[in-house]
């Protein structure tokens, strides 16, 4: 094969160029097929929802109205402040209508299940119909030798079980494969069957079909087609019912979405089949050990192909010319294009809102509706990462051998546009009146930006990992690619969705609050940042020069030297250090100039500003490495960015601890987590810098920098200037970016520890001290109950004197020994002490009244009892405010 590639001239002394084995790496089209199937099944969710609305809609509305009324009535009876009362009302309402919502979710899932089940039925029925309609038949005894030849080729092809060979009627001109999964059949046109001796016709054509069988193309293609056949009638149902009924409110909105879905099915399925054709050609050539027979067959028929641009979009086969090109240059088959990015992201955008909506309802009954977005993001991220991400990684490897270099920018733009279009077209928004589920559709730009950034990040990581490939086994590399890309895209999708929602509902105020509170607490984001940093670090450590390309990547020819390049470790490490130091240094200068914070509110603002600046240090570093190394920069930034942030965190800790501040492991984790999580978001955005084309983009060229000391200056200046500029912007615009100090906290003055320490104290009081007090109070409550149920009044008095009062006094003693760290905590704790003191007064009076039979003391007892109850409630409210403010008491 390699010899024939260079024209069979065996007398030349030119080295044989290596032929890349593109089939060695997992094909992204398999995942794209799965995404396609998932998108179709998710459309079944819409049908299920519609069916629920038609059959159970009135009942559901009645339940919702009844639950809302009950919850409002309950709210009116409580004495809680407005925010807490609202939260309580919402929780009660959710619980009340939980059963109705679960039923709605069941209908939605049932719709998807119906589409899937229908698809399976069609998969198993279709072969029967095909066989009958196309008058397919076995070869028969007269063509036994053809059958024998087919069996021989099947054995060579490595298929798990030999498919049955059939032939078509006289009108059949092309070969094809069909059948139920696991029992494929290959149908040959009679013109080919009778020419089984022609090894330049029969053999390559049969090998091609067997390659389809081996790649499971039959199962995927027919499953996708079958699900669509099952789904299409279900989608027609709402149209028919709307036309027959008087309610046509959703008809128009639904029709254009369904039509676009149909067009998508046509174009995406055709595009997927075209991709698989190249894989089948390459596999057939690999099995044969040569490309000439297949190329000759394709050339013989090239003149038959008549293609106009529109038909080419719906064609299931590439042109013979394209196929011949790929056979000669397999790396052409792995190029990821704008359309690949667009279609994959479009499918992800279609299915995400549908899956998130049904899962949110399912988990709402358990108070975890947020899990809906998580799981939908993980699923869509897995599909998007497995198609676009895996494609980029495969391309990175193939291009190293072929000496080519693909462009990432078109793919990234395709992903960005695809995500937006998918959300726009998704059936989830049918009849909602909102575009893509948003009141302000401009926030869709968030999805576009983060989708582009995720693609750039994936491409950068692909190049970084490609450097280390010679050290890796094939399956480990594929597994790593799958996991890393899934996390990148899942995080990006989750961040885009939740940030869009926050911005759409609460504008910039809620958006920036989300960035520093909810984002850092999300394990998906922090976990992804950690895994990306570790994996980038490992790949950078494992890269090694002067090695040959891994054998499993080469089909034939001598493995070439594995090209390396990119920044040296000291360059990106220096950029990280400089970014972090300059960023934190800017903050230190600001603190020095502005002086100590005049209030806890300003201290809170400075704390949030620190989070932004530390995260921005990571962004400055990301921007720097992306500009220094367009190909690998985004991948290197997965480690360098967090290092820059940690450098800033270290600076903050030094400045905080030096004057005598407390330092603990928990404190360190607390102050590092938020900027690292926000840093991932910034990294995704700054990675777009790597998409800006430059003169030298090739991984080979972008980094022959090992001897260029001139790179020192950019590695120093660029991050310094970038960090300085971003920090200055954040500091001067802190009111707009972080928020006004008055809105962050309830104001209070007085001496206090730093804001972070105050938060830590608050959390400690909330999570440890208060539960301990309540646990210690439990036996007191039991004693009170025992005393109140005593047989005689004298006995009650005795129990109060002997048990209840000593327990209360001991409890008070312990509570008085507690020293909360801030005045606000002291105020909250004082309510607890006051409650215990009033309780002691109450039970002392009660015991005396019971002992001396003194009814006049009852009034004072009641007063003491009410006072104790009020103080106890005050204490509970203080704990609630602590919880809402995550350690800092929030004032609604």
């Amino acid at each position: 094969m390699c010899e024939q590639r260079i024209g069979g001239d065996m007398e030349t002394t030119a080295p044989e160029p290596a032929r890349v084995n593109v089939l060695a790496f997992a094909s992204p089209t398999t995942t794209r097929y799965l995404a396609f199937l998932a998108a179709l099944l998710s459309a079944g969710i819409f049908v299920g929802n519609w069916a629920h609305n038609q059959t159970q809609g009135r009942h559901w509305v009645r339940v919702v109205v009844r639950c809302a009324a009950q919850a409002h009535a309950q709210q009116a009876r409580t004495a809680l402040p407005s925010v807490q009362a609202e939260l309580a009302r919402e929780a009660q309402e959710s619980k009340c209508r939980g059963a109705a919502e679960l039923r709605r979710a069941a209908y939605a899932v049932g719709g998807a299940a119906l589409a899937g089940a229908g698809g399976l039925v069609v998969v198993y029925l279709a072969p029967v119909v095909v066989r009958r309609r196309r008058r397919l038949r076995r070869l028969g005894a007269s063509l036994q030798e053809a059958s024998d030849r087919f069996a021989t080729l099947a054995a060579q092809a490595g298929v798990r079980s030999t498919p049955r060979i059939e032939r078509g009627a006289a009108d059949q001109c092309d070969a094809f494969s069909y059948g139920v999964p696991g029992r494929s059949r290959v149908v040959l046109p009679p013109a080919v069957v009778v020419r089984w001796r022609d090894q330049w016709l029969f053999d390559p054509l049969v090998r091609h079909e067997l390659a389809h069988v081996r790649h499971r193309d039959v199962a995927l293609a027919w499953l996708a087609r079958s699900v669509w056949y099952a789904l299409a009638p279900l989608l027609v149902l709402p149209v028919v019912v709307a036309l027959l009924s008087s309610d046509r409110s959703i008809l128009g909105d639904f029709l254009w979405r369904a039509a676009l879905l149909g067009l998508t099915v046509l174009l995406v399925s055709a595009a997927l089949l075209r991709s698989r054709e190249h894989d089948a050609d390459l596999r057939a050539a690999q099995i044969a050990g040569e490309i000439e027979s297949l190329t000759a067959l394709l050339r013989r028929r090239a003149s038959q192909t008549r293609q106009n641009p529109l038909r080419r979009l719906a064609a299931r086969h590439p042109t013979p010319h394209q196929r011949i090109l790929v056979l000669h240059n397999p790396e052409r088959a792995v190029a990821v294009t704008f359309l690949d990015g667009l279609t994959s992201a479009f499918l992800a955008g279609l299915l995400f809102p549908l899956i998130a909506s049904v899962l949110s309802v399912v988990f709402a009954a358990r108070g975890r509706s947020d899990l809906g977005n998580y799981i939908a993001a993980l699923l869509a991220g897995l599909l998007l990462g497995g198609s676009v991400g895996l494609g980029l990684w495969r391309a990175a490897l193939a291009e190293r051998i072929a000496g080519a270099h693909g462009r990432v920018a078109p793919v990234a733009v395709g992903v960005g546009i695809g995500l937006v279009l998918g959300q726009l077209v998704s059936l989830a928004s049918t009849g909602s009146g909102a575009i893509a589920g948003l009141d302000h559709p401009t926030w869709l730009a968030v999805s576009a930006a983060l989708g582009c950034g995720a693609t750039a990040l994936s491409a950068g990581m692909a190049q970084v990992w490609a450097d280390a490939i010679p050290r890796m086994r094939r399956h480990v590399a594929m597994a790593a690619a799958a996991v890393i890309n899934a996390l990148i895209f899942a995080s990006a999708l989750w961040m885009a969705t939740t940030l869009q929602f926050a911005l759409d509902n609460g504008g910039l105020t809620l958006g920036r609050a989300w960035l520093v509170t909810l984002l850092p607490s999300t394990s998906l984001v922090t976990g992804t940042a950690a895994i990306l940093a570790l994996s980038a670090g490992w790949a950078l450590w494992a890269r090694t020069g002067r090695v040959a390309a891994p054998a499993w990547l080469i089909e034939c020819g001598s493995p070439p030297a594995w090209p390396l390049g990119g920044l040296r470790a000291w360059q990106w490490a220096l950029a990280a250090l400089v970014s972090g130091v300059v960023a934190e240094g800017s903050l230190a200068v600001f603190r020095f100039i502005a002086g100590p914070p005049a209030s806890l509110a300003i201290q809170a603002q400075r704390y949030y500003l620190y989070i932004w600046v530390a995260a921005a240090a990571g962004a400055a570093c990301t921007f720097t490495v992306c500009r220094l190394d367009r190909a690998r920069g985004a991948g290197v930034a997965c480690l360098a960015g967090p290092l820059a942030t940690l450098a800033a965190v270290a600076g903050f800790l030094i400045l905080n601890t030096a004057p005598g501040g407390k330092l603990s492991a928990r404190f360190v984790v607390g102050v590092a987590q938020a900027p690292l999580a926000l840093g991932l978001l910034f990294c995704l955005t700054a990675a777009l810098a790597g998409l800006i084309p430059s003169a030298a983009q090739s991984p080979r060229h972008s980094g022959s920098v090992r001897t260029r000391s001139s790179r020192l200056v950019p590695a120093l200046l660029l991050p310094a200037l970038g960090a300085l500029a971003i920090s200055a912007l954040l500091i001067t615009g802190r009111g707009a970016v972080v928020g006004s100090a008055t809105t962050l906290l309830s104001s209070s003055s007085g001496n206090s520890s730093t804001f972070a320490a105050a938060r830590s104290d608050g959390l400690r009081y909330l999570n440890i001290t208060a539960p301990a007090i309540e646990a210690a109070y439990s036996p007191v409550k039991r004693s009170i109950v025992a005393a109140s149920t005593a047989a005689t009044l004298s006995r009650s008095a005795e129990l109060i004197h002997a048990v209840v009062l000593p327990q209360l006094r001991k409890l008070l003693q312990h509570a008085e020994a507690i020293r909360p760290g801030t005045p606000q905590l002291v105020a909250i704790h004082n309510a607890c002490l006051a409650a215990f003191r009033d309780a002691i007064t109450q039970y002392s009076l009660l015991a005396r009244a019971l002992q001396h039979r003194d009814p006049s003391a009852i009034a004072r007892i009641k007063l003491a009892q009410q006072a104790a109850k009020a103080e106890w409630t005050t204490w509970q409210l203080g704990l609630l405010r602590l919880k809402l403010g995550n350690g800092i008491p929030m004032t609604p």
Partner: protein
Amino acid sequence: MHATHPPDRERDVERDLVDELAQAVLQRVAPEELVVFEETAADYFREPELVLSGRRRDEAVGFGLEMALLTPYVLAVGTAVVRFLASAISEAVRDEVRDELKPVIAGPIRRLFRRDDACAAGRQEATGLGHAPTPGVTVEQAREVHRVALQQARKSGLDDDKASLLADAFVGALVVKG
């Protein structure tokens, strides 16, 4: 191509002649297709237009190219050639009475086929036309057969090269006097 459908008895006779001639031609141009000739002929005569059009499908999970049998084209051209030969033998082409005599003139037509002279002679005696003139078409008739075959082949969708090859094969399958 099939503007009229002759009655069943005549169709059987015509079909037999066409089959015989087609097999003779296939023996020259595509002998490997003879193994599936019966079925192909059955498919063709069931739906001639469909078979010739080839149902150019863009098959999912297919190969993507078109490989049609030559047999249907041979049958289509053979039909035209047989009808031409029938008209050449019989003087009254458009006479309906002569159409009814087609089974009678099958034997003489068959004698024109190069590969089946013994059978043709046997049928000739059975039909009472044992003293027919020397079998074979004239050179001019052969040229006319070539023209008819070429025209029909092109009309059926073959390119010029294949159509010419087929026309030559048809002439080659006949006995030519002179």
